[in-house]
């Protein structure tokens, strides 16, 4: 009873915005309950022409690249050894872990037979991109969970697990990057089977590569946005100096993406390209505002050094990525005569999932050391029965 009361008072002390998020999550949960009671046909606008809708387009195809910050940053910090970015790693891992957990929920909601999800382990079909993605998503969620355990172990002072996690850190970072490369690109492979269905503006054999490169761009942009938001609204220190480094890498990856995209369009795709005005506009917005404009912004030092303009450019990349994923998985697949739009319940569930992501991030940041993490300040000096953990030095993390 007292525990319940403590929780109640704790919740009551939350900011109004958090309470609002809690309400959205509750509504989303209720809506997903309706989906299970009444079935997909009754609660969604899906049909035989549009077997995939908002849940696949946003909750899976879009959310996965948006959660790409963790593996991108992990590789940058640990493999390419740009150590000073370390303080950004933990928030990125938390975001990634939450993102993937929610992707799994979105996928389960969308399955017609969610109780059989485990069949993927039992009946393998290595020719299926869906098989590849589900295996990777599960493996990667596990990796992210292990990485996320570090702040949890610190919070509760579990020293042995901490030591193990420390030792695992590098293998996990490498595994994360390898697994992510696979499933980020395989999401693009999904649509290679939609020959003659996906519009020429997006259908080309390089889709997997394009998905991967744009995921890396969006991963870094999300980190920029997130760190800026945490600084602005959660009273965290301004990481501007670090973000500037990221902003310096971004023009390279964005430039690579644009070059590949132009190449695929000119050399690998078959016309006609501009036969459907709606799609042409969508394409122009995606490329022009979502990738080319931020590329030119990030090239300029004045933009990279300015907190606000840097965030805007990062926001544009996110916009471009989201629109790109929707173009590939939804708009570009549309039949000109029959239009799909998500039902109220579909939309509420997706809004709930987004709200859930922000909510859990804020709550985790509140109770676990994900921001104030600086390896040198962690206290490892408590007795350890197997080996003395103490003596951990500021350089421990760089010397494993």
């Amino acid at each position, binding site marked *: 009873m007292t525990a319940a009361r403590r929780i109640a008072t704790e919740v009551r002390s939350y900011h109004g915005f958090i309470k609002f998020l809690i309400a959205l999550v509750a509504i989303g949960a209720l809506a997903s309950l309706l989906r299970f009671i009444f079935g997909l046909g009754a609660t969604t606008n899906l049909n035989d022409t549009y*077997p995939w809708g908002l849940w696949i387009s946003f909750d899976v195809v879009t959310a996965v690249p948006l959660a790409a910050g963790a593996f991108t940053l992990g590789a940058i910090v640990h493999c390419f050894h740009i150590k000073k970015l370390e303080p950004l790693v933990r928030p990125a891992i938390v975001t990634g872990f939450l993102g993937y957990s929610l992707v799994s929920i979105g996928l389960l909601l969308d399955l017609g037979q969610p109780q059989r999800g485990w069949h*993927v382990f039992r009946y393998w079909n*290595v020719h299926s991109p869906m098989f590849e993605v589900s295996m990777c998503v599960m493996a990667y969620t596990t990796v992210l969970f292990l990485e996320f355990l570090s702040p949890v172990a610190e919070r509760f002072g579990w020293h042995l697990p901490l030591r193990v996690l420390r030792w695992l850190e590098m293998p996990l970072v490498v595994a994360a990057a390898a697994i992510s490369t696979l499933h980020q690109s395989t999401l693009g*492979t999904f649509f290679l089977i939609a020959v003659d269905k996906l519009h020429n503006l997006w259908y080309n054999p390089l889709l997997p590569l394009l998905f991967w490169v744009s995921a890396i761009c969006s991963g870094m942009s999300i980190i920029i946005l997130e760190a800026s938001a945490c600084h602005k609204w959660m009273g965290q220190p301004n990481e501007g100096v670090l973000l500037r480094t990221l902003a310096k890498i971004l023009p390279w990856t964005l430039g690579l993406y644009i070059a590949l995209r132009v190449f695929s369009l000119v050399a690998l795709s078959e016309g006609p390209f501009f036969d459907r005005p709606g799609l042409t506009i969508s394409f122009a917005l995606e490329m022009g505002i979502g990738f080319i404009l931020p590329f030119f912004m990030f090239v300029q030092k004045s933009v990279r050094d300015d907190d606000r303009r840097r965030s805007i450019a990062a926001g544009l990349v996110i916009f471009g990525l989201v629109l790109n994923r929707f173009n590939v998985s939804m708009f570009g697949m549309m039949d000109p005569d029959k239009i799909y739009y998500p039902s109220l319940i579909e939309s509420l569930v997706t809004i709930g999932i987004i709200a859930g992501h922000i909510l859990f991030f804020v709550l985790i940041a509140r109770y676990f050391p994900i921001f104030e993490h600086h390896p040198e300040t962690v206290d490892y000096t408590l007795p350890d029965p197997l080996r003395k953990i103490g003596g951990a030095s500021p350089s421990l993390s760089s010397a494993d």
Partner: protein
Amino acid sequence: MSTLDTTKNHAFLIDMTKCTGCRGCQVACKQWNQLEAEKTVFFSGEGYQNPPAMSEYTYTRIKFRDYQKNGQNEFAFYKEMCMHCNDPACASVCPVGAFKKTAEGPVVYDDKRCIGCRFCMIACPFGVPKYEWSKGLPLVKKCTGCHDRVRGGMKPACATACPTAITYGPRAAMIQEAERRLARYPDRYIHKVYGKEEAGGTSVIYLTSLPFEELGFKKVTMRALPSFTWQALRLVPGIFLTVGGGLSALSWINHRRDRIKALREAEETGTESAEPKEEQQ
């Protein structure tokens, strides 16, 4: 798929110029597969056909198409059903392998495996698999090629019921027969054996007098669809090893450089830093 013994691979030869539009096949299919009737409205779909589309209750239907030829009103028909592709897209994308091309020809679906991801519906170039949108835990529905009958040496229900237009037999023989008819009656047909190469070849082969697009045949590639995704997917193990190995090597080199630098600094200053101690462990 290439390991299948294709000598037993049977196919439908559907000669639309001989179809009278009796829809005996449609009824036979409903009966054999115990499919519910659908409530329909006249003039609801693209034309006179009923039901308006294939669905969880309708695995096949005759599409009607009226057109003008030499100032005369004419009718053309088209039997819509699963094409039982030689290398089916539905089977290649299904994560749990619920679809299978059988040696006899039909592409069958195992409803005990299906997890309901509906990727098969996205993949099929002919828009064949349909979903049980009416159910809480829906499954995929499509023409079975009457595999249960074919396995026992019978013909599919629709082929048995058809008085004129459907011939069923070994695929090679059906293609031969189709080409013989084209050569014999060049004026009666559009000169094309549909299904010989479409989507890498199918076990349903059509002859008709009206251009195929006019009949509502979907535009499909001649290449087997699974090859489109496989050209990317087959790289998966290689990419995994390259990225994993590359990053491991990279971080090892970078860390080593760090350690050496620390050691050297320690030597120069003559103090013992924590780094070499870490090394000894």
